[in-house]
C-alpha cells in the first residue's frame, strides 16, 4: 500500500497511470497549441516590424518574410523621437521601482514585525487603498500637479516627476501587501539572534531581512515596473505641451493616421516597447511566480 501511494505521488498521475497516458498526450498537444495561439500576437508583431511596407499592405498573410528590413525601426526612431521617449519611460519606471522598493519594504517590515498601536487600522487602510481606482483620481491629480508645479516644477505638469509621484501611489499598496508575506515568513528567532549579537533594528532590517526577502522584492519590482511602463492615461493627461517629456505609450499613437495607419512603424514601436519588459519577465520569471504565490497565500 505504502509503495503504491509513494509511486503514484512521485509521478503525480494516480494509480491508473497506463490508462491515463493517451489522455496526457492529448493534454500536451492541447497545451502546445494553446501556447502557440497565446504567443501568436507577439510573433505577428515582431514579424510585421521587420516586414517591408509592401508586404504589410498586401493581401498576402504569409507568416514569414524573405526580405526582413530595419526600415520600420528607422522610421520610428527618426520621424518620431522614439529614443527620447524610451529614455523618459526608463527614467520614470526606474525611479518608481527603486523608490517603491525601498519604502514599501520598510512599511512591510513595520506592519509585520513591529507591534504598535493602530497597526490593524493601517493594515486595513493599505488593503482599502489597493481598491481605490487611481484612474478615477485623474481630475484632482491633474489640479494637484498643476499647483505643485508652481512650487516644485519638476513634480508639476509636463514633467516626469508628476508621473513618478502618481505611479508610486499606484504601486505602493500592492507592493506592501505582497512583501508582507515574505517578511512574515522570516522566523522571529532570527531577530532574537541578531539582537543577541548586538544588532539594532536598522542593521537587522537591512543586513538580515533585506537579503532574505530579495525574491519578494524582485517580484514586486517587476509589477511596479510594468505599472509605470504601461501607463497611458496619466502620461496623456499630465504631459500636455512638453512633448519632449512624453513617454512611450503615446509615442506609438503618432503613427495612427486618418489617411491610413503606418502599421510597420506601429508594430516596430510596439516591439521596442515590449522587448525590455519581456527580457525582464523571462529573467525573473521564477521569482515572479513564487512572488505571486508567496503574496497571495498570506
Amino acid at each position, binding site marked *: 500500500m505504502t509503495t503504491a501511494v509513494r509511486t503514484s505521488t512521485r509521478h503525480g498521475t*494516480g494509480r491508473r497511470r497506463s490508462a491515463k497516458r493517451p489522455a*496526457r498526450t492529448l*493534454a*500536451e498537444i*492541447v*497545451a*502546445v497549441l*494553446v*501556447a502557440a495561439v*497565446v*504567443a501568436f*500576437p*507577439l510573433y*505577428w508583431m515582431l514579424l*510585421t516590424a521587420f516586414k517591408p511596407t509592401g508586404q*504589410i*499592405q498586401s493581401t498576402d*498573410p504569409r507568416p514569414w518574410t524573405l526580405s526582413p528590413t530595419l526600415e520600420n525601426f528607422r522610421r520610428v526612431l527618426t520621424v518620431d523621437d522614439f529614443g527620447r521617449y524610451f529614455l523618459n519611460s526608463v527614467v520614470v519606471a526606474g525611479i518608481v521601482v527603486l523608490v517603491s522598493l525601498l519604502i514599501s519594504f520598510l512599511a512591510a517590515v513595520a506592519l509585520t514585525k*513591529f*507591534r*504598535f498601536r493602530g497597526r490593524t487600522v493601517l493594515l*486595513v487602510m493599505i488593503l*482599502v487603498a*489597493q481598491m*481605490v*481606482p487611481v*484612474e*478615477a*483620481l*485623474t*481630475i*484632482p*491629480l491633474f*489640479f494637484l500637479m498643476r499647483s505643485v508645479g508652481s512650487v516644485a516644477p519638476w513634480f508639476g505638469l509636463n514633467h516626469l516627476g508628476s508621473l513618478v*509621484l502618481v505611479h508610486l501611489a499606484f504601486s*505602493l499598496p500592492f507592493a506592501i501587501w505582497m512583501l508582507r508575506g515574505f*517578511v512574515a*515568513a522570516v*522566523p*522571529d528567532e532570527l531577530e532574537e539572534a541578531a539582537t543577541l549579537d548586538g544588532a539594532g533594528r536598522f542593521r537587522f532590517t537591512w543586513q538580515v531581512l533585506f537579503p532574505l526577502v530579495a525574491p519578494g522584492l524582485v517580484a514586486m519590482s517587476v509589477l511596479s515596473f510594468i505599472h509605470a511602463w*504601461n501607463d*497611458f*492615461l496619466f502620461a496623456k*493627461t499630465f504631459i500636455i505641451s512638453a512633448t519632449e517629456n512624453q513617454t512611450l*505609450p503615446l509615442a*506609438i*499613437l503618432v503613427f495612427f493616421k486618418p489617411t491610413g*495607419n503606418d502599421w510597420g512603424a506601429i508594430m516596430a514601436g*510596439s*516591439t521596442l*516597447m515590449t522587448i525590455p*519588459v*519581456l527580457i525582464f*519577465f*523571462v529573467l525573473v520569471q521564477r521569482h515572479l*511566480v513564487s512572488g*505571486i*504565490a508567496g503574496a*497571495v497565500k*498570506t
Partner: protein
Amino acid sequence: MTVQSSTEPGTAGRLPPLRSGKRRRPRPRGPRASGRTAALYLAPTGIVLLAVMAYPLYQLVQLSLYEYGQAQASGGAPLEFRGLGNYADLLGDARFWMVLLNTCGFAAVCVLGSLTVGIALAVLASRVRWLPRTLLFLAALGAWATPAVAGSTVWLFLFDQDFGLVNEILSGIGLESMEGFSWTYDRFVAFALVAGEVIWCSFPFVMVTMYAGIKAIPGEMIEAAALDGASTWRTTRSVLMPMLRPLLVIATIQSIIWDFKIFTQIYVMTDGGGIAGRNLVLNVYAYQEAFAGSSYGLGSAIGVVMTALLLLITVIYLRVQRGFGEST
C-alpha cells in the same frame, strides 16, 4: 472588516504551506515599544499615499459637488456650489446609464473570461510534462509582459479591416463576407474585440496564481480521497476547491479591480470610446467629460460613482465568498 478577515490570518490557516515548515503567522515582536521605529519606517509610504491618494480622493468628492468648468479651472469665474446637482444630471442622462451598463457588462465578460481561461490553463499546466508546461508558461508570460498599448495595437492590426490577418484567413477559407469586415464598427463586436485583448493579457495572472495553489496541494491528499472512494467530482469539490478558494478570491478581486477601470485598451482600440461614444466605459467617459469637455465637476462625479461601485462590488463579493466558505 470583511476585507481584512478574508485576506488576513483567517485564510492563513486554510492554506497549505508552499515551503513547508517556514510558514507562520505574522507575529509582532515582544513588548518592546517599537512605535517610534514603526512611525519612521511607515512615514515615506504614508506621505506619498496621503498626498497622492487620500487627498485627491477627498478633492474628487469635493469637486463633484461644484460647477467646475473651463472658466473655473483657469480662475476666470467663481466656484459655484451645486450640491448633488452633478449627480442629478448624471442620473437623468440616458447616456450615463448606457455607459454604466457598458462598464458592468464589459468588466463581467473580462473577469469571467480571464478566470475561465486562467483556471483551465492552470489545470492543464499541472497535468503535462516539463516541455509543454514551460511553453505554456512562456507564452503566458509573454502576453502578460506586453504593455497595454502594444497589445492593443497588435490586436488592432490582426483584426484590421484591410490588412488584418484574421480577415485574410476568414475570407480565404470561403467566408467572402468577411473581406473588409470592420471589427470596430459594431458596438458589440468592438467590445468583444477589446475584451479578447484584455483577457489575453490578464489571464496569466490568474493562471500563475491558481497553478501555485494546485501545486501546493499535497498529492497524498488527493490519493487519500481516491482511496476513500471519492469520485473525481467529489474530490474536486470537497478537497481541491476549499484549498483553492482563498486564491480564487484574490484572483477574482484583482480581476474585478483591473477590468472595471480599464482605460488604455478601450481608448486605443475604439479610438476614444467608439463611434458616437458607443463603446465608452466609466473611466473613459469621465476622462472625456473632464478633459475633452472641460466639465471637471461632472467628470469628478463619474469618478466618485466609479470608486463607490468598485468598492461595493468588492465588498459584496467578499461577503458572498465568506458566507459560502462558512457554510461548506
